[in-house]
């Protein structure tokens, strides 16, 4: 019974929070095609972590500062169409990663620490880490819930958002900051290398199975939580890296949905039997 161990309990709770928060923020990431941005932000935390390590401050604080700085930097570079957003992301992402690796290589215990940041160390979650994870996770969820209407409008129809007087740029930046927070919270459980999967995969799975944003978010959260639990148990019994196990469970759930989603799955398409109006979303004429 792995839950007999306190470190296992903490790891499990932290993974659950991360699975749920990533999945919900991930719905916006998937709907707006920001998967690349999510991955970039995850790698951009490295220099922040390195600096925090060198200055002996909390690593998560360093990660958060770096992620927010890169998120806002991308917004600044791409504002007014000076650069395409994916170009701005590519530039800043690689620069931050390089800076991170350069700084890390000056640290003696470089390889273990780097591995932990890249791939997580869920069984090393301390009580204060868990509190911080839970606190930040709840804060992110609370903001998404409170500003549901505003964020929906900004992401679905920025034109209407702007003409009803909403501060579109501020809300976009806010979502980027929430995304950065989510990534930082996830570092300890799945690490920078794999967090993009937790952001994208549950949300993409839920998109195949639902037709409204609230149900998409709920289902994604369920998938995220299930994958976190199942992955952690799997890693305990089969003895594989926990972050990788969580992501692999997520991916398996996605593949099942991709094949068998009612009306939209690949298997359904093969049968040639789509329910009326099932998937003609790309036709524009009547």
């Amino acid at each position, binding site marked *: 019974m792995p839950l007999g161990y306190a470190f296992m309990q903490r790891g499990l709770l932290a993974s659950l929070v991360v699975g749920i928060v990533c999945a919900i923020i991930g719905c916006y990431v998937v*709907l707006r095609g920001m998967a690349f941005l999510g991955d970039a932000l995850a790698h951009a935390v490295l220099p922040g972590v390195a600096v925090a390590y060198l200055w002996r401050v909390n690593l998560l604080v360093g990660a958060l500062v770096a992620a927010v700085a890169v998120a806002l930097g991308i917004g600044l570079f791409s504002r007014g169409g000076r650069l395409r957003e994916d170009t701005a992301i590519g530039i800043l992402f690689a620069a931050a990663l390089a800076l991170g690796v350069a700084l890390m290589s000056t640290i003696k215990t470089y390889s273990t620490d780097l591995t932990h940041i890249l791939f997580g160390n869920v069984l090393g979650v301390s009580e204060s880490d868990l509190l911080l994870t839970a606190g930040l996770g709840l804060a992110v969820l609370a903001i998404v819930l*409170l*500003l549901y*209407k*505003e964020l*929906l*409008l900004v992401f*679905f*129809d920025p*034109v*209407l958002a*702007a*003409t*009803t*007087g909403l501060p579109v740029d501020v809300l976009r930046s806010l979502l980027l900051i929430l995304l950065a927070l989510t990534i930082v919270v996830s570092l300890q459980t799945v690490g920078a290398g794999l967090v993009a999967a937790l952001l994208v995969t549950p949300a993409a799975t839920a*998109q195949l199975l*639902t*037709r*409204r*944003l609230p149900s*998409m978010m709920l289902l994604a959260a369920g998938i995220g939580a299930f994958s976190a639990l199942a992955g952690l148990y799997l890693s305990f019994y089969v003895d594989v890296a926990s972050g990788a196990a969580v992501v692999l469970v997520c991916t398996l759930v996605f593949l099942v949905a991709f094949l068998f989603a009612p009306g939209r799955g690949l298997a359904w398409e093969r049968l040639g039997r789509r329910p009326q*109006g099932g998937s*003609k*979303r*790309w036709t*524009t*004429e*009547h």
Partner: protein
Amino acid sequence: MQTATALEVDNLTVGYNGQPVLSGVNLSVPVGAKVAIVGPNGAGKSTLFKGLVGLLPARTGRVLVHGRPVAQALDNVAYVPQREEVDWSFPVTALDVVLMGRYGRLGWLRRPSRQDRALARGLLDELGLGDLAGKPIGDLSGGQQQRLFLARALAQEPALLLMDEPFAAVDEPTQNAILDILTQLTQRRTTVLISTHDLELAFEQFDHLLLINHRVVAFGPPQTALNPRTLADTFGAPSFSLSEGRLLSLTNKCCPPIPENKPAHGGRQHG
């Protein structure tokens, strides 16, 4: 009161990246007017709308809605952009979209009330979309999508309604439904501005015409706004005639003549 001005535009210049598309627009639209904006492709019809609602900054001039600067009057303005500007695969239902029209009146943090939902459902019914309320928007046809966006604009309860190309690629019933609603709106003293490629439709169904070609060529009731000179200034070579107040033929560059033998359903679609 009869001569109250809904929309006042003073010397407005708007454009993209340093290039003005429309210059020196002066306009005074009376309350309750039903205005069709006509001009060739690239004349600045969409740019005008974006300038009016502040999506493009004014380089010169100003826009007043019922006497107030437009930035402070956005509660009273509804703008329906061209249909292509929306992500139709987004997981929202028809009812969700109409409810978005209420967001501006709700303010921060408040959820739509039962009254808001009732109003949204009523508007869906009015536009013949009642049965589709729970459908994802991607399942709607082009005409239904256009009516949906009109329903959302109506949910904003605007004093000024701006629609960019509402008749592009819609079927005849949708076109008639939209025209009916626009007439009802102007009877209730809402002011309506739409753009269209269809000069004949504009001439017959609207009480004001605004002819533009990078500037305002003419504005007024169709009979006075349209004459051989303004037509030539708007579309280039004069290629149709006016006789006893009727628009007889129309073969200008923007809109190819309607083929005679098109199936009934095609009616007035072009552009």
